[in-house]
């Protein structure tokens, strides 16, 4: 035990941000289960088997999902994992979001925090992953993110189903006085083939729940699966095509008030002068109150409907304090450039001596490029909102969110109550993409709930408030250099990327008194050092910048930055060397058999797209590949520029996550993530003037529309040794494949996002 505890502590220190609490992590704590949060919370007649499964006397089977549904289909796949072992069809299962509870910890999300390459599958790499998992359980982070939900649930949810089934069989066996292994479980019923007697799970549930429920039951082999590996009907399909009120913004409670916020558009600043007279005069507005939390300062408006609240907010006359950070985008860029000129904050991966090899190379064989990526908003379709009620010293919160524990802790601090006195009901999200990990909407709702206590209040942000008060995908500037001799594979790569640390930014928001230190935040250089291209000499350096602009997780995050830069530069190298971009990539992945799945996705996407076949003039193709969240993805985009504008005609994506649990849903995720990645290129950027975000709404921060969407073909391979994620890996290569296609077609190399600054797109 001592040794494991020691290594665990080392894991904690390696994670940087998490070291602050002085964690005494031990194996004992790892083994000890967290309390079941459902006990005492469910109605009479509902039997609880574990934190994930309950069965009611009427045979209603409910799955409590540790992760939240934001479109990625996780309710369906987590339910399918339970159904597979519980012997019930998916259609019999009801899914609900689990409450905020340590029992729903996600240990898969930080598994890769140790920094091993995704394809490393040796004892030491897996030991480090397990240790990170121990840490994950200890921290009990209940988060939906990092494309980790199915990996996190893969064993837990199946064991939950199997444990319940074994208990049900045991209860039936006792009732009939036979051995459990003579009975058959199927379709929510247990049958004794000898007598023909049958009982539903519901009829046995109370007795079964009183049995010993094994927490580590044997699981069925892949070959025995009837549900997993096959496309399922989404459990939320009917609600989502009939307009059912399932989202946070649809919350309706008796006696509920409506509100909105007008927070300082200057980050960290407050009001220096304000006049609320006009706001209070708006019909339906009952109060305007100041709000000050760790995430922002400003005003809350309380009204009889959302529209009145919006009008009240618009009528607030206020001057905000000046920014204490580079106030416009040019000044921000200067900070990034200065960081690149300064010493690196840290390096990761790499081998040989890239700087020496570059110095030794003849000048005509040295290639260098600078890439620029802007801040980006999440622009979820459903604007930020939360509904809160503060009564008798306790807060109840209803909202779509990706981290209920963070919501509870943050609100508890605002109200000066214990997190145990906060109940979080997680509702469906109209998009998350990382934005709903943040607790700002919850904190403001909690602050307003105190004002109107004990009445509930739904606080909805306007789109403008949402766009200008984001936690943005970091801006980044990357300088890339390579040594490339004509006709040969490049032998040196030097990468330096300047970007803010998300961990540091989140730390400031959640613990303003102590947080905010920047440790080795791998998101700064993700998508570069962790990629399979094997340069004999390579250096990957992160230059962390503190820019004053709040940054946060965004679909595929660091890989969305590194993926664009690295894969654009690989294309530049190939063209400089006179090599085919796919052939060159393949030739740089030959020395290690563990990269074979990566080679396979490239070969398959070449085959699918007809790579190398001649195209009519005005058309061309580009390729990119990225390993992220454990999944290999290669993409080809085909453009047509014959009209004078770039039109994306077709796109192909091949993905290998090792194991696919629901092929239809997986393809939808890869396709959707690719569209998310391509959308950036079409004009998305968040810029600053006077420290305030310029963009306001979809008219100046838009995303791809139907007419711009290429025909997309997705293919799945399952060669990878370990299971990867689904929601994010489709995003990182997309913009690079598009930029590379534009170069192949026009000879124009665009290194700054959005690409639309330098070339027109069909709209």
């Amino acid at each position: 035990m001592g040794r494991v505890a020691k290594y665990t502590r080392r894991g904690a220190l390696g994670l940087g941000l998490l070291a602050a609490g002085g964690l005494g992590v031990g194996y004992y704590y790892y083994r000890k289960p967290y309390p079941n949060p459902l006990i005492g919370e469910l109605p009479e007649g509902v039997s609880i088997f574990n934190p994930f499964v309950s069965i009611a006397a009427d045979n209603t089977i409910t799955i409590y999902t540790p992760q939240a549904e934001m479109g990625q289909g996780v309710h369906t796949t987590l339910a399918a994992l339970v159904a597979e072992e519980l012997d019930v069809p998916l259609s019999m299962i009801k899914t609900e979001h689990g409450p905020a509870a340590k029992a729903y910890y996600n240990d898969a999300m930080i598994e890769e925090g140790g920094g091993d390459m995704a394809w490393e599958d040796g004892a030491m790499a897996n030991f480090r992953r397990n240790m990170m998992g121990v840490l994950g359980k200890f921290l009990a982070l209940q988060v939906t993110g990092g494309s980790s939900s199915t990996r996190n649930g893969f064993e837990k949810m199946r064991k939950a189903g199997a444990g319940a089934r074994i208990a049900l069989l045991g209860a039936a066996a006792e009732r009939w006085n036979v051995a459990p292994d003579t009975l058959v479980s199927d379709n929510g019923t247990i049958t004794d083939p000898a007598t023909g007697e049958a009982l539903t799970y519901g009829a046995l549930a109370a007795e079964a729940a009183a049995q010993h429920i094994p927490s580590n039951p044997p699981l069925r082999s892949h070959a025995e699966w009837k549900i997993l590996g096959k496309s399922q009907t989404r459990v939320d399909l009917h609600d989502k095509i009939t307009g059912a009120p399932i989202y946070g913004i649809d919350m309706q409670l008796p006696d509920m008030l409506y509100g909105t916020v007008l927070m300082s558009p200057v980050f960290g600043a407050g009001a220096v002068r304000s006049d609320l007279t006009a706001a209070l005069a708006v019909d339906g507005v009952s109060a305007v109150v100041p709000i000050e939390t760790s995430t922002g300062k400003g005003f809350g408006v309380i009204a009889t409907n959302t529209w009145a609240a919006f009008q009240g907010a618009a009528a607030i006359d206020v001057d905000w304090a000046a920014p204490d950070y580079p106030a416009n985008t040019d000044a921000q860029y200067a900070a990034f450039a200065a960081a690149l000129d300064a010493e690196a904050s840290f390096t990761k991966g790499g081998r040989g001596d890239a700087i020496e090899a570059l110095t030794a190379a003849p000048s005509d064989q040295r290639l260098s490029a600078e890439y620029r990526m802007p801040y980006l908003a999440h622009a979820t379709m459903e604007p930020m909102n939360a509904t809160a009620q503060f009564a008798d010293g306790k807060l109840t919160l209803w909202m779509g969110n990706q981290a209920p524990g963070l919501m509870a802790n943050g609100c508890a601090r605002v109200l000066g109550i214990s997190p145990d006195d906060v109940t979080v009901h997680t509702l469906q999200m109209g998009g998350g993409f990382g934005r709903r990990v943040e607790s700002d909407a919850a904190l403001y709702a909690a602050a307003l709930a105190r004002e109107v206590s004990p009445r509930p209040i739904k606080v909805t942000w306007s789109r403008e408030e949402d766009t200008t008060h984001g936690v943005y995908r970091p801006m980044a500037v990357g300088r890339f250099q390579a040594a490339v001799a004509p006709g040969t594979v490049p032998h040196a790569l030097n990468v330096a990327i300047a970007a803010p640390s998300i961990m540091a930014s989140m730390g400031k928001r959640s613990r303003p008194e102590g947080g905010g230190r920047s440790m080795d935040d791998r998101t700064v250089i993700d998508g570069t050092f962790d990629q399979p291209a094997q340069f004999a000499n390579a250096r990957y350096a992160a230059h962390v910048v503190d820019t004053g602009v709040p940054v946060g997780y965004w679909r595929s995050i660091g890989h969305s930055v590194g993926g664009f830069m690295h894969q654009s530069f690989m294309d530049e190298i190939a063209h400089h060397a006179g090599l085919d971009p796919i052939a060159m990539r393949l030739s740089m992945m030959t020395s290690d058999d563990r990269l074979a799945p990566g080679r396979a996705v490239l070969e398959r996407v070449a085959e699918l797209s007809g790579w190398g076949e001649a195209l009519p003039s005005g058309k061309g193709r580009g390729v990119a590949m990225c390993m992220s969240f454990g999944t290999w993805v290669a993409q080809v985009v085909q453009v047509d520029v014959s009209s004078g504008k770039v039109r994306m005609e077709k796109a192909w994506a091949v993905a290998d996550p090792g194991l696919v649990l629901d092929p239809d849903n997986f393809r939808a995720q890869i396709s959707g993530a690719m569209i998310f990645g391509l959308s950036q290129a079409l004009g998305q950027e968040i810029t600053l003037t006077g420290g305030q975000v310029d963009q306001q709404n979809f008219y100046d921060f838009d995303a791809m529309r139907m007419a711009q969407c290429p025909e997309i073909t997705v293919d799945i391979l399952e060669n990878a040794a370990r299971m990867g994620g689904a929601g994010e890996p489709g995003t990182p290569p997309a913009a690079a494949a598009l930029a590379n296609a534009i170069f192949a077609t026009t000879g124009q190399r665009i290194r700054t996002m959005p690409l639309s600054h330098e070339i027109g797109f069909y709209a």
Partner: protein
Amino acid sequence: MQLIVNGQTREVDAPDDMPLLWVLRDLLDIKGPKFGCGVAACGACTVLIEGQAVRSCALALGDVYGPITTIEGISQGDNLHKVQQAWAEHQVPQCGYCQAGQILAAVALLDEQPNPTDDDIDAAMTNLCRCGTYPKIRAAIKTAAGA
């Protein structure tokens, strides 16, 4: 004033300039039309008025010119509209937030053009989807057109 929503007459006490979206959502508890942008830029709030797709966030109550149909009003009990059936067959939704608006835009398109071309679909289907369900929306419209 009186509104006819999904065939029912509803009494509303609200100012003339209140956007129809908020009348529906906050005053009449009809939550199918969603708030996305407030400026008719995304289409999440789409409803049908006289068969036309209308962005209800930018239509003042006083300017409502006919009976309103929301997503709640296009199916009859358990009998889904053919567009909803096609949406189910193709499992279009991901987060689903924009889909009520997308479905109503498709209903209006098919009402006017029963066999739309790809260009017709591009022209009519301008609603935003952040999950990127466009390929499935296109396929579902073609299925519904053939139904």
